[in-house]
């Protein structure tokens, strides 16, 4: 009888393969007495094992994908530092000498002593750090026992096409297993934000987490199906079900191949209308993913990362170097830089005089408000951006505009900086387009004013939705109201797009909504002609654009204004999808 287990699908895709049960634990050491003249050999054996374990982690560090989140590296760094801490290099050596015992036993004693300290900690999160101790010790023990780095049974075993089933996986294990060719993995522990889950997405391995007792339910070698999209694991599937999943897998592969082929394709509708399609960049590390999908421009370059994890704001010079570097990285495609959208919530730096105690930082001193409050911050960035504009096609946009007054203040600062640069005979693009983000409902309702005052507008849907619906996205009790297709949100978007058309001011959209393939036709019908999306969504959005004829959408634009509920919008979306 077929068995279907529901967990949490953390990385999309379908895999069909034989189960490979991982026994994470290295053999539990036993005490073995050694002769006095063997002691130094045993110490050397331990040191060599620690060095080899460090090399393994270093080699995993070099293979982390460029678009994996930065803390994966930090996590492995922490393990590397633990390995080289006196707790592992000093104390076990002392134990070997004192007890005349084998290296494994000395390590096990030290591990147990450390684990006792951690398990007695009050803070539940810090208490679970005993896992780190266990992982580090296991890695050394594996080297000592001659086992492979991850719990393969044999050194260098080929795991090609296998589905790994384990209690848990460390990020390092995950990278190593992917290199060994696994098709997918399913684990008993874990949640959607666990490092292993994030890494599985970066590596493109279908994965399900949160399946308790899984190892007891499956046998080594039996064929199972992993549907990472739905979070379902299927064992003992009959032939009909396997056929269904093989077909799904084929479709998926065709879809992926089709997407890759779209890399070079123009972003044109079926009736030949060009739709601008650009990528959002959050971190310098995103350049690789942007190049991979062949983006022809950067529609939103966020500058917040420059200000984080440091005690002083970045200097003008440092910013200038970074901005000019974008042209180098992106082969000179047009780039839209957003001035910094810091909130009092993001930072608590000593150079920042703002209060971090705001109860609701989304409604506090942030974005343009903060920049006008801290003009020296703004001026350094404006100088850096203007100077960079001499080196490539650059546009600048301002986040979180609420009032015309704010925009005028901003423009006054900009004019001052321009004058300064002219006096210094510093080159810059005198006609660099200046745009504004529309994310505050008051600005959306005055879109005419801003369309007249600016060279372009860009709709930031994430904040626009949260402000329009009066909800805090992180508040689980009201997050159900966060819906891009709420008619109130759609009418505001429509209003901004129409203002853009009346003033011949281009309007782009750079929020998550723009990168959601379900809404592409709706937005095209409403008149949007410029999308800026997460690199991972770019080709999928291009595919929808290329399968859509604007002519067929003609009647839909007016209809969206009459919709009264999310249910009605969903019906319209189904109609659009069926076109």
């Amino acid at each position, binding site marked *: 009888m077929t068995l279907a287990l529901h967990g949490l699908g953390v990385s999309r895709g379908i895999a069909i393969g034989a189960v490979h049960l991982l026994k994470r634990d290295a053999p539990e050491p036993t005490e073995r007495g050694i002769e006095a003249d063997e002691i130094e050999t045993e110490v050397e054996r331990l040191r060599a094992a620690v060095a080899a374990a460090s090399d393994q982690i270093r080699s995993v560090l070099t293979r982390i994908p460029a678009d994996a989140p930065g803390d994966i590296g930090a996590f492995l760094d922490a393990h590397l*530092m633990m390995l080289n*801490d006196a707790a592992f290099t000093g104390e076990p050596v002392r134990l070997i000498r004192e007890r005349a015992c084998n290296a494994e036993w000395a390590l096990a004693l030290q591990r147990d002593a450390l684990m006792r300290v951690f398990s007695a900690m*009050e803070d539940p999160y810090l208490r679970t750090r005993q896992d780190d101790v266990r992982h580090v010790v296991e890695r050394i023990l594996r080297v000592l026992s001659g086992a492979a780095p991850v719990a393969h049974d044999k050194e260098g075993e080929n795991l090609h096409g296998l589905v790994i089933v384990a209690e848990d996986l460390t990020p390092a294990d995950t990278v190593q297993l992917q290199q060994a060719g696994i098709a997918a993995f399913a684990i008993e522990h874990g949640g959607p934000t666990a490092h292993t889950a994030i890494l599985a997405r970066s590596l493109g391995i279908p994965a399900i987490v949160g399946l308790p007792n899984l190892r007891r339910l499956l046998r080594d070698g039996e064929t199972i199906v992993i549907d990472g999209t739905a979070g379902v694991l299927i064992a003992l599937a009959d032939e009909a079900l396997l056929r269904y999943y093989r077909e799904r897998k084929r479709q998926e592969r065709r879809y992926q191949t089709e997407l890759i082929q779209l890399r070079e394709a123009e972003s044109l509708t079926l009736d030949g209308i060009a739709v601008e399609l650009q990528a959002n960049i959050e971190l310098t590390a995103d350049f690789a993913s942007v190049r991979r999908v062949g983006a022809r421009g950067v529609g939103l370059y966020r500058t917040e990362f420059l200000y984080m994890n440091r005690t002083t704001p970045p200097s003008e010079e440092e910013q200038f170097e970074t901005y000019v570097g974008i042209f180098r990285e992106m082969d000179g495609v047009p780039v839209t830089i957003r001035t910094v959208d810091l909130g009092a919530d993001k930072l608590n730096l000593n150079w920042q005089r703002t209060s971090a105690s705001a109860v609701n930082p989304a409604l506090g001193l942030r974005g343009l408000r903060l920049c006008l409050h801290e003009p020296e911050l703004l001026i350094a960035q404006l100088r850096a951006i203007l100077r960079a504009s001499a080196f490539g096609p650059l546009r600048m946009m301002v986040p979180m505009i609420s009032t015309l007054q704010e925009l005028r203040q901003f423009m006054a600062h900009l004019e001052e900086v321009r004058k300064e640069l002219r006096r210094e005979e510093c080159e810059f693009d005198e006609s660099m387009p200046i745009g504004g983000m529309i994310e505050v409902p008051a600005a959306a309702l005055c879109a005419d004013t801003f369309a007249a005052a600016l060279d372009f507008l860009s709709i930031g849907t994430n904040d626009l939705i949260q402000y329009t619906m009066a909800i805090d996205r992180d508040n689980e009790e009201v997050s159900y109201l966060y819906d891009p297709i709420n008619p109130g949100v759609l009418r505001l978007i429509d209003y901004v797009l129409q203002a853009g058309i009346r003033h011949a001011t281009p309007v782009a959209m750079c929020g998550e909504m723009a990168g959601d393939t379900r809404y592409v036709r709706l937005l095209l019908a409403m008149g949007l002609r410029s999308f800026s999306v997460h690199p991972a969504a770019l080709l999928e959005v291009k595919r929808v654009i290329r399968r859509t004829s604007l002519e067929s959408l003609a009647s839909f634009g007016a209809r969206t204004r009459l919709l009264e509920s999310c249910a009605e919008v969903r019906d319209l979306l189904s109609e659009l999808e069926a076109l």
Partner: protein
Amino acid sequence: MSSLTRTITICNKLGLHARAAARFVQLASRFESEIRLTRGSREANGKSIMGVMMLAAGKGTELALIIEGNDAEEAMAELVGMVENRFGESE
């Protein structure tokens, strides 16, 4: 040669866990000065990740940061900045 002592409060949500401790130790190790952290009667070498982790400093914990050496002032400014900046974590 100077000797400085400051009381610091751990303000990131997860406390001095492995990655935060790693960042602290990496920064501390760049300085020549001797760097110690104390919590009550317990003391840890600020350049040892296990020592720092075993202080069990959760959110809200107060620690004394004691730095002795030629670059003590610079080390104090940078380390305090990092702790106040929640080790670069968002909450």
